[in-house]
């Protein structure tokens, strides 16, 4: 009779219970109690601090602090990405700004307190994951425990009689279990605790756990790799212009700790054409429908010229770096002649679109080498201009009716002192305003400056794109490690570690076979069925192994010997 019983409330004490317990939980945590004793030495304090740091609780707190610390980075303008915004914040919040600056809130990701959180988190994770990895590896290698004495007390159990003597019954059971891929443990040759087999299966769970933890470490290392050996850069590129991936060719350059200018991949990119299309009618009128930057590029200075398209979310990959399209705008072309009739400025000048929408853009033109005085113009570019009550408005983002509106200045731009200036801002303190009202120009129209100071002509416009260049050598390893971590986690969730014990005790003829089974974290169920089928297979194997005619004296002898015990 195969008697499959319902699980008991109290399974047998398991000598290796700790290792079978959910390995994702932190066994150190329960022990990280506070020191109480008076003779708690320096070494003990250090050990206590280390245990605290590497506990899961502290790691989670640090992770939360890291997320919290990043918030001001997105709420406040940052030195690295938006120095003009920081300057503006100082003007508009004169009392608050110095305090925030003192706390490093304008350069959050470079602030000492942010680095402290990051490093502590890193140490915490390494200190937690590395020892655990060794522990898991050890647990995956240990043999199953010895078979308990009373298997019917296990969550699953079966009992039946077999004609085979106990030794042979255990032998047959071992063969069946080995055939099912169990790892076996048999009693030592000289042991006197009967005939039994311990079998364990589901080590893939531990493998999955190990994979998860190692991959987690791999992700950390990959992120560090990217931070140390990667770089980020921005470049605004006007149609027809080209640039090389070298600090001078870049507008903003944020190298990793170990990146020198010589490490950048030496590519050059030319913007041949940029097309932006917009929805022309309906409720979505003016919304962009497609962007396409056609570029030609060389991966190395002497290399062949290739062409490609960069679209939103479709970066160009060149020599390990990725070039993303992150913005675009208009660059009106101005030609300026000075009082002496010399052409002193003739170029497309990028204007930046503001909050007023439809690419109404602002910018400045600084003519630093005009004679006898420097000239400056602050202006707006309106792609599709409509005058509403004397005010220019843009009604569509495409350049269907482009005009510029300019205010002219003459004097000292303040650039000769050698202090670098933003090309998007003009300091008019040393300048005299030449035109009382803004002067509106259509393409081809000129503005003659009063007092014979010169002429400015709005000759047309170009489009520009803003490119973000990132090189992150940790990206691919991080992806692989991330996928491995996920795979390991799934494996550890889906594979059950389960044990099956077989014990054969002698009776008058043959033996009584007890089969017991135990699965940990049987959340998905299924062990009951597996155990039932296994027990049935064991029983039929035992039945078949009984010789059909009494020509097996050895079995008989053994049965007698066991009976005598």
């Amino acid at each position: 009779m195969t008697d499959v019983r319902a699980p008991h409330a109290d399974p047998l004490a398991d000598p290796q219970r700790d290792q079978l317990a959910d390995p994702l939980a932190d066994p150190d945590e329960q022990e990280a109690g506070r020191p109480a004793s008076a003779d708690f030495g320096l070494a003990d304090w250090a050990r206590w601090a280390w245990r605290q740091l590497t506990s899961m609780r502290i790691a989670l707190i640090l992770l939360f602090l890291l997320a919290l610390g990043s918030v001001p980075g997105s709420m406040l303008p940052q030195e690295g990405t938006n120095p003009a915004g920081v300057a503006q914040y100082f003007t508009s919040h004169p009392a608050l700004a110095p305090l925030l600056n003192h706390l490093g809130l304008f350069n959050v990701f470079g602030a000492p307190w942010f680095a402290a959180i990051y490093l502590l988190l890193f140490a915490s994770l390494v200190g937690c994951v590395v020892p655990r990895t060794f522990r898991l590896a050890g647990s995956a290698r240990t043999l199953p425990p010895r078979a308990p004495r009373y298997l019917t007390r296990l969550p699953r159990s079966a009992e039946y009689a077999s004609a085979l003597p106990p030794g042979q019954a255990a032998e047959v059971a071992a063969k069946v279990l080995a055939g099912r891929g169990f790892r076996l443990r048999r009693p030592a040759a000289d042991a006197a605790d009967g005939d039994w087999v311990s079998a364990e299966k589901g080590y893939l769970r531990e493998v999955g756990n190990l994979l998860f933890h190692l991959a987690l470490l791999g992700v950390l290392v990959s992120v560090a790799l990217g931070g140390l050996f990667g770089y980020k850069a921005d470049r605004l590129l006007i149609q027809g212009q080209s640039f090389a991936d070298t600090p001078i060719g870049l507008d903003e350059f944020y190298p990793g700790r170990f990146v020198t200018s010589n490490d950048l991949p030496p590519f050059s990119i030319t913007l041949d054409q940029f097309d932006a299309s917009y929805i022309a009618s309906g409720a979505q009128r003016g919304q962009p429908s497609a962007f396409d930057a056609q570029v030609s590029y060389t991966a190395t200075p002497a290399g062949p010229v290739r062409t490609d398209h960069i679209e939103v979310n479709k970066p160009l990959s060149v020599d390990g770096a990725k070039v993303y399209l992150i913005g675009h705008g208009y660059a009106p072309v101005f030609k300026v002649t000075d009082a002496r009739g010399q052409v002193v400025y003739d170029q497309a000048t990028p204007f930046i679109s503001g909050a007023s929408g439809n690419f109404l853009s602002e910018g400045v033109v600084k003519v630093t080498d005009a004679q006898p005085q420097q000239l400056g113009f602050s202006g707006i570019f309106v792609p599709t201009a409509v005058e509403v009550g004397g005010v220019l408005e843009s009604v569509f983002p495409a350049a269907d009716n482009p005009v510029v509106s300019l205010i002219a200045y003459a004097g000292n731009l303040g650039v000769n002192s050698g202090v670098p200036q933003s090309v998007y801002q003009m300091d008019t303190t040393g300048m005299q305003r030449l035109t009382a009202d803004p002067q509106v120009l259509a393409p081809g129209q000129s503005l003659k400056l009063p007092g014979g100071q010169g002429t400015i002509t709005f000759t047309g416009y170009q489009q520009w794109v803003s490119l973000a260049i990132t090189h992150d050598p940790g990206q691919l390893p991080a992806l692989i490690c991330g996928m491995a971590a996920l795979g390991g986690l799934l494996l550890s969730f889906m594979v059950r570690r389960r044990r099956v014990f077989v014990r054969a005790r002698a009776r008058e003829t043959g033996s009584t076979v007890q089969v017991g089974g135990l699965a940990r974290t049987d959340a998905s169920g299924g062990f009951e069925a597996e155990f039932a089928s296994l027990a049935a297979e064991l029983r039929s194997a035992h039945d078949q192994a009984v010789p059909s005619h009494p020509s097996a004296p050895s079995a008989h002898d053994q049965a007698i010997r066991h009976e005598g015990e």
Partner: protein
Amino acid sequence: MFKTKRRLVVLGAAVLAAAALVIVLVAGWAGSGHRDVTDVDGNASAVLYTAGHQPLAPDFTATTLTGAKLNFAAYRGQVVVLNFWGSWCGPCREEAPTLAVAAEQYKSAGVDFLGVDVRDTTASAEAFTRNFGITYPSVSDAGSVITLDFTSVVPIAGTPTTLVIDRTGHIAGAVFGPTTMGELTAMLAKVTGQAA
């Protein structure tokens, strides 16, 4: 159990120590390039490369602001002061008068000055040279490809950067940032005297 925990602490410390060692080694390796130079005038922004560590200047062919073809290889045998600049660059305006004077002064000593006009337009660049009385030629490097070539041998991080190139075409000295007459004089004395 206590023993195991101690082992874990030791293990954790060992891992951290190993990580620190790797970082120190890599940092040392990354910083090792800076020992090939000596400062000029006690100013870290102006350096002379020590003998044997002078990088060979790359050759280039380019168009000057006035539209002529210029082959840099033709300068071999001359001492060259190569200045990377742009009319848009404030610090370049600061050093421009010095360079204009120095170019005139060193003409008789066989020192040629040459500009590399980076990320600029011809109209603005010519207005700049006219304004500061710069008479030596400049090649146009709007796409910064010449700069890219030079960056592979000298860490050019921005404009202005000035290189002093000896008669064999090797870069003998470099000024990162606006140059002064004192720095130029010290470097050129070394280079012209050495080769004389």
